[in-house]
């Protein structure tokens, strides 16, 4: 539900933006609680949608209520009762009674749990396909409209709507429980949640910012990751947030004149110091806990990079050590590739190229780019040019293309 855009009902942009911002901020909490009380995602969604219609009608006229979240919760609850009664289902009286009286957490869960945790673990359940998890999480927890999510991912609205429908159908048919996983499973299941958020973040990574036109996925991912670290205490959650913050901090320096600027060449004065400080603080906290994991290690690598005032001051030795640790727990050719880039700075391009050539990554554009850069440094321009061409064939992003073309010569 978003603001009407035509005729006398059209709103001043700033009012509309304020309301949209509040809706997004509160949506997760409101719908999470409603789903628990109703035991039905579709009904909860419809009830919240009804409440939003009322909000969009009344708030511009009467002003935004002092506690908009509470207003939405109460209104959506009432709309749910209306719907239950209207639909006249067999167990309607029972459902309505549950709604009115049951304001407490479900008894079997022990200590009080924030309903948003139940919601995020359900939306990110491993039994759901990853793209469907992403869609459902952004819709329910993020409070984005289907249209907003579709546009952000550059897919038709019907496609995105289908993903959400499939996820909800599977949750219902297979009886996926609305629950925070047991302590023993929490780490693994949290990994699934983090993967969803990281995917969303990366989708926004090289997106060209369009004010008000496209929801910024990186910003959304950071917002949800912040929520998550407030709800669950786990070093990998902190690690992911740190990784996102440290990556996002370099955003303004990443693109210049429509072309990508690599880390070594970026104007570091354009980095966001506040985000870097926050990221570094999180990394230090993670180091103190000493329960390393892949996101924490990647965050630490980014912290070493962002610690250097100048590219020449980069502590490559520490970076290489961190990649060694990462390889030990999450071996992959991509990590080997990134480690080789660090080794090039320590042991020279020849050693690095030998490692890179052993990797089976011919469909990965960054592999070709790395080879191209190393070959260039080794004074083998023809082979370098061939590698740049191979990379260009795999790259779709315009800024990246522009960069590669300029390097290719």
């Amino acid at each position: 539900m978003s603001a009407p855009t035509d005729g006398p009902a059209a709103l001043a942009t700033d009012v509309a933006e304020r309301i949209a911002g509040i809706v997004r901020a509160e949506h997760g909490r409101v719908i999470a609680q409603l789903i628990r009380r109703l035991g039905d995602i579709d009904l909860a969604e419809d009830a919240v949608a009804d409440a939003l219609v009322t909000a969009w009608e009344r708030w511009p006229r009467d002003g935004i209520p002092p506690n908009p979240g509470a207003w939405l919760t109460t209104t959506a609850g009432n709309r749910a009762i209306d719907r239950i009664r209207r639909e006249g289902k067999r167990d309607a009286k029972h459902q309505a009674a549950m709604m009115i009286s049951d304001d407490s957490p479900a008894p079997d869960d022990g200590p009080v749990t924030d309903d948003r945790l139940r919601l995020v673990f359900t939306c990110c359940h491993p039994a759901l396909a990853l793209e469907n998890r992403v869609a459902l999480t952004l819709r329910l927890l993020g409070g984005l409209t289907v249209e907003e999510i579709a546009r952000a991912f550059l897919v038709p609205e019907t496609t995105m709507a289908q993903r959400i429908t499939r996820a909800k159908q599977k949750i219902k048919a297979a009886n996926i429980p609305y629950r925070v996983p047991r302590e023993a499973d929490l780490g693994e299941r949290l990994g699934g949640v983090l993967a969803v958020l990281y995917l969303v973040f990366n989708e926004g990574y090289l997106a060209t910012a369009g004010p008000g036109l496209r929801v910024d996925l990186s910003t959304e991912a950071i917002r949800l990751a912040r929520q998550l670290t407030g709800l669950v205490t786990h070093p990998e959650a902190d690690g992911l947030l740190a990784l996102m913050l440290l990556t996002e901090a370099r955003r303004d320096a990443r693109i210049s004149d429509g072309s990508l600027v690599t880390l070594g060449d970026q104007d570091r004065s354009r980095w966001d110091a506040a985000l870097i400080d926050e990221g570094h603080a999180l990394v230090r906290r993670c180091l103190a806990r000493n329960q390393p994991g892949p996101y924490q290690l990647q965050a630490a690598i980014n912290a070493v990079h962002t610690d250097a005032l100048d590219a020449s001051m980069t502590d490559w030795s520490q970076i290489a050590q961190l990649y060694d640790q990462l390889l030990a727990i999450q071996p992959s050719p991509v990590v080997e590739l990134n480690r080789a880039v660090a080794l090039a700075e320590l042991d020279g391009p020849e050693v690095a190229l030998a490692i890179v050539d052993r990797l089976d990554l011919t469909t990965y554009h960054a592999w070709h780019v790395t080879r191209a850069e190393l070959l260039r440094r080794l004074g083998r321009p023809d082979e370098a040019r061939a590698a740049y061409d191979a990379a260009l064939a795999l790259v779709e992003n315009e800024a990246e293309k522009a960069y590669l073309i300029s390097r290719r010569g």
Partner: protein
Amino acid sequence: MTQYLLSVIHEGGLPHLTEAEIQQSFIDTGAFNDEIQASGHWVFAGGLEAPETATVVDNVRGQNLITDGPYVEAKEQLGGFWIIEATDLDEALAIAARGSLACKNPVEVRPFQGE
């Protein structure tokens, strides 16, 4: 409570188990069956004879066509199944994980339609 079909998938063509490993999987599966019977999850289960022993009956248009062999001609075939009752999918998946480990094959978990 929901009933689930846990299908044991035989991936034909893949280098599979040694004779000793096969024997061990029988023992482990037997132990697993005992566990889920004791815990009350068991509804029904059984191992199936090889796909070559199957016969397809197609009486859709009243012609009662009979064909030798499994319906789907694929490397992957159904080797057996458990029908269990579980509180929710998480419980069913945990049971399937133990079943898959015991019988040394992937297991597909599918909910039955509600009443």
